[in-house]
């Protein structure tokens, strides 16, 4: 296990280095002179020169890559052009809201997707199985920004059963002020026992979370179905059947136990995809997370912010993969001995 861990961590470090270089390349691709963007269109030659020196553009490429690496390592991810704040602190402010949204979506995806997958595996080829397949295929093919707008129109604008946008009812700020610790309203409200805000924030969370869940629900349902069906032919499952365990126990308890591992792995991968999918949803629901920050950065051509968010999610993805691999290897010796 130690050897496997060392090898896997070393690989992750190599990938992280590559990820940093790739983001440097993206930042360097910007057409035109970044110094002009920094100093403004009416800057004098002297101001431009000062900007070039300040941004380090007068130095050779290897030095700049070295400095970029050093900056990333020491937490200096550059300054956002549109907020004039350090990019890393902007990301720190925005990330909790996105985390809350994506975690809520993944909870929905597991709570809905796993039973759907189990039901499909219980009766393969049935109408239910086909219906679940259709749901899964629809989820994978869904333009989620469109789904967000449609659900917002139907449930918030027309039926008025759910709030249109935001994290919780702004009127509650005065009547039930929320003590913010984690920047996640649901968690903060739970921690401080602020039930009014908790109810409101949960209601605000429903629509965006359901939209972000559309893709993972399908993936998880299909994965669960495939994994459970895969175990059904194995001898220990046949033994369980011959011992007279009812079919639902065989599938729900024993086959699912084996299926959790790959389903959890898919969940970690889907996490990063959902982070990016939330980009398309957040601005529609006025959700103050990374997605809103990224789309605002795109509109203002804020390269440091765009590159920062890209780097951040790349790192999260590498970390998620690493954790999944290590946990799986710890649980399943076949992986680390391969």
């Amino acid at each position: 296990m130690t050897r496997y861990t060392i090898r896997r961590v070393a690989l992750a470090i190599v990938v992280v280095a590559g990820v940093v270089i790739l983001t440097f390349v993206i930042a360097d691709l910007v057409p035109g002179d970044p110094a002009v963007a920094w100093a403004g269109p009416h800057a004098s030659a002297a101001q431009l020169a000062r900007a070039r020196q300040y941004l380090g553009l007068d130095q050779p490429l290897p030095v700049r890559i070295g400095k970029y690496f050093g900056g990333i390592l020491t937490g200096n991810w550059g300054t956002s052009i549109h907020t004039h704040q350090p990019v890393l602190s902007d990301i720190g402010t925005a990330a909790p809201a996105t985390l809350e949204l994506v975690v809520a979506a993944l909870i929905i995806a597991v709570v809905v997707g796993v039973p759907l997958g189990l039901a499909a595996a219980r009766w393969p080829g049935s109408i239910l199985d086909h219906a679940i397949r259709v749901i899964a295929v629809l989820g994978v093919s869904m333009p989620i920004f469109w789904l967000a707008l449609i659900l917002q129109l139907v449930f918030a604008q027309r039926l008025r059963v759910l709030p249109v946008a935001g994290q919780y009812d702004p009127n509650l700020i005065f009547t039930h002020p929320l003590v913010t610790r984690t920047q996640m309203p649901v968690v903060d409200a739970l921690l401080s026992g602020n039930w009014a805000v908790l109810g409101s924030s949960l209601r605000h969370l429903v629509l965006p979370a359901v939209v972000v869940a559309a893709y993972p629900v399908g993936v998880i349902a299909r994965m669960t179905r495939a994994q459970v069906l895969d175990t059904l032919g194995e001898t220990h499952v046949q033994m369980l059947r011959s011992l007279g365990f009812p079919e639902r126990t065989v599938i729900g308890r024993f086959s699912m136990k084996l299926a959790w591992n790959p389903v959890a792995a898919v969940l970690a991968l889907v996490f990063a995809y959902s982070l990016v999918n939330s980009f398309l949803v957040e601005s529609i629901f006025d959700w103050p997370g990374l997605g809103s920050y990224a789309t605002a950065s795109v509109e203002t051509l804020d390269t440091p912010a765009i590159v920062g968010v890209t780097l951040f999610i790349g790192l999260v993805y590498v970390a998620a993969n690493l954790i999944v691999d290590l946990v799986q290897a710890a649980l399943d010796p076949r992986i680390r001995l391969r």
Partner: protein
Amino acid sequence: MSTLLARAPGVSAVRRAARANQLITAGTLIVAVIVVVAVFAPLLAPYPADAGTATHPEIALQAPSLRHLFGTDQVGRDVFSRVLYGARVSPVIAFFVLLIACAIGVPLGVAAGYFGGVTDEIIMRVTDVFLAFPALLLSLAFVAVLTPSLTSLTIAIAIAWWPWYTRLIRGQAASVAGRPYVEACRTLGIPRWRILLRHVLPNSMTPLVVQVSLDAGGVILTISALSFLGLGAQDPVPEWGLMVAEGENYFTTQWWLVTYPGLAILVTALAFTLLGDGLRDTLDPRRLPVR
């Protein structure tokens, strides 16, 4: 998952094939309709000029009617005509994205399989780096720093997509390399490049076709998502994602502006997913039942 279905009790290979054929039939039919619409858009669209620079402010934001099946948009253009013309935008861009991605990815995959060792290691670590980003994010970052245009969009998405093909082809090469018939080729003294070109690459084509078909839907979703964010097509190009974005401001009262272009994206992505699923079930030899 098709393997698993085959192994599942009560589902015979025949039924599995029939189901796969249903998927292929449904997918192919919709794709064929999209192709026909794209080719004959000027004949099918009631107001071809509305896909271009034409504007009719006097009939702006009209609800769907017999004159305008999908209503009119904020400058009076016929939404139905624009949705039909949209079949000429994202699907065509997706074709070029996949073409470029394969043109980069396949040779690199073959190279990794052919040379092995250090070359293999370097190529695969580079693909690892690219695959550390979800495709939508990486193409978003690239296209955001480039000047927004359909060319930038195509290149940016292709840059995010090629590593999948490198990985696929290399894995294919590695698995074929161990087969007895390849060993036989080697014993006969056939040069390695010839084995790769004549035996490995043809054997990789089937999974490649399946993967490309499955990916086409994802690429179309990425194109429309980036256009929705304002990073792809620009007005007056009738791109579906851009049309959704333009309709967003009027959406609460004029629902048709967003609904129809979005449906077009959904149906198109769905068609390619179904086609790819069906193709995988029938074509991929590794997934055929062993019995």
